[in-house]
């Protein structure tokens, strides 16, 4: 055990490398160290990322759901039709002209004319009222225009009511009321859930990083006592938080995509019952990238907040 004393090996004129190089060196080291830490404890890392991924997946999934629901509702409304019964005095030629006029309007997608004869025929074919109808001498049915709306359905129905030739405009109000009820309820529910999930995601991410940092409190305190600045101490934790975030974001995306695939068949069936060819739309590539980056930013932010808190506690003597 030889303890050398006397003049040391290093030169007295100490090299001072460029600040920038040292700074970059430290950043790279912090990142690599953070990644190393993740790999060194694969199970703990998986658990942490799993928790964060769930916390992220839920509000994200809700967001996708709401977006799809809106598109879906729009789709369904477009597929719905307004029945315009014309006044009994309006003859078929006038009805045909009116149909042509209406079809030219921008808020109308299509107009189909059903003449009284067609109506009677379909009544005869469809119902068992054949005999009863034969009793009627004259065809009492009016001409019917079946209008497919191209824009705001309610406004369109209103304006159709004002047509001089229109007698009864049938716009299935009960159906509409029910759908609105469902949607109002769904929206309220979604918001309640979103608030809950948002709070949950914040709590989970914050708590995860907090406990991770608490575990290394001793290390932080040693670094502080050796003269490390807050920035120096915080950096590896920021990278750690960002790594967690990015990985959690990726896992959340994967989970959501799996959920999306499992929901496709029933939703398609549902849409078809409304005569719509609506398809569930997941994340586009830019969206996905945004989500992963956002999750990384969230992890970075959470780590920053919590590290700041720990630093303040450990640095009790500075106050």
């Amino acid at each position, binding site marked *: 055990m*030889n303890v050398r*004393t006397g003049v040391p090996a290093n030169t007295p004129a100490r090299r001072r490398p460029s600040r920038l190089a040292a*700074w970059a*060196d430290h950043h790279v080291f912090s990142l690599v160290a953070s990644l190393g830490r993740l790999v060194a404890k694969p199970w703990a890392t998986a658990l942490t990322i799993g928790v964060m991924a769930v916390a992220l997946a839920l509000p994200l999934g809700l967001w996708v759901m709401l977006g799809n629901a809106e598109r879906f509702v729009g789709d369904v409304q477009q597929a719905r039709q307004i029945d315009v019964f014309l006044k009994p005095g309006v003859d078929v030629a006038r009805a045909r002209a009116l149909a042509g006029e209406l079809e030219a309007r921008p808020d109308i997608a299509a107009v189909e004319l059903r003449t009284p004869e067609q109506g009677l025929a379909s009544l005869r074919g469809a119902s068992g009222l054949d005999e009863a109808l034969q009793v009627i001498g004259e065809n009492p049915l009016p001409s019917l225009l079946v209008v497919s709306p191209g824009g705001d359905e309610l406004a369109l129905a209103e304006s159709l009511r004002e047509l001089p030739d229109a007698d009864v405009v049938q716009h299935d109000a009960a159906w509409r009321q029910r759908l609105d009820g469902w949607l109002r309820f769904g929206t309220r529910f979604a918001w309640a859930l979103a608030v809950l999930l948002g709070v949950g995601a914040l709590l989970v991410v914050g708590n995860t990083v907090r406990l991770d940092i608490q575990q290394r409190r001793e290390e932080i305190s*040693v670094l502080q006592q*050796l*003269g490390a600045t807050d920035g120096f101490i915080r950096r590896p934790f920021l990278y750690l938080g960002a790594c967690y975030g990015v990985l959690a974001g990726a896992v959340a995306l994967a989970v959501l995509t799996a959920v999306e695939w499992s929901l496709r068949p029933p939703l398609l069936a549902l849409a078809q019952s409304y005569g719509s060819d609506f398809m569930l739309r997941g994340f586009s590539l830019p969206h996905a990238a945004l989500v992963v980056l956002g999750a990384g930013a969230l992890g970075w932010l959470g780590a920053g907040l919590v590290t700041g808190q720990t630093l303040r506690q450990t640095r009790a*003597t500075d106050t």
Partner: protein
Amino acid sequence: MSVLRFDNVSKRYASGREALSEVSFDVGAGEMLFVTGHSGAGKSTLLKLIHLSERPSRGAILFGDRNLLKVRGRRVALHRREVGVVFQDHRLLTDRSVADNVGLPLVLRGERRADTGKRVRSVLDRVGLGDRATALPGQLSAGEQQRVGIARAIIAEPRLLVADEPTGNLDPTLSAEIMALFESLPERGTSVMIASHDLALVKRMKKRVLVLNQGRLVDDIRPEDLAE
């Protein structure tokens, strides 16, 4: 010129215990001195005040012409880089190698990790641990850990070295070698302040000795005085 000056410094912990009472002394540039006293006399507390692990309750501490009372926030870190510390309980980073632990003060001073290797090796050789650079602190004996702490404290050639019981886990031969190492530091501009309860060792060194008793500075023995 004095490197360090304590002026009527008292320290009362939150628990109400007065660990230091009106302590005043001066440390000259390039001086080496010992602080002794019974267990609980206040030696560690005194050293902690110097690197701002604790704050005095009363009195003033000057480091060069810096009033330590006024060092706050970011400047605490900068001050600590000018003071090398050997902690009584080592305080090594358990998940980094011996070499990384020893090189840390250089990295904190803004050097690139890759550039610290040579100096780390040189200083590890000086404390007799040249062959343990890649070990983790948990794989070292207590005395080896203590020497890593010493290497870390001296690597950046601080203006002042404060060492709390640096030979508490070392045998007499090794203690003497470490003391010789400390003795060589003042030549290179580092003042050295060592807390120790090892009276035999302290006497042998023939340096200035501050004697604490229940928080009071009861004696300030200079080698000149002994010679008289």
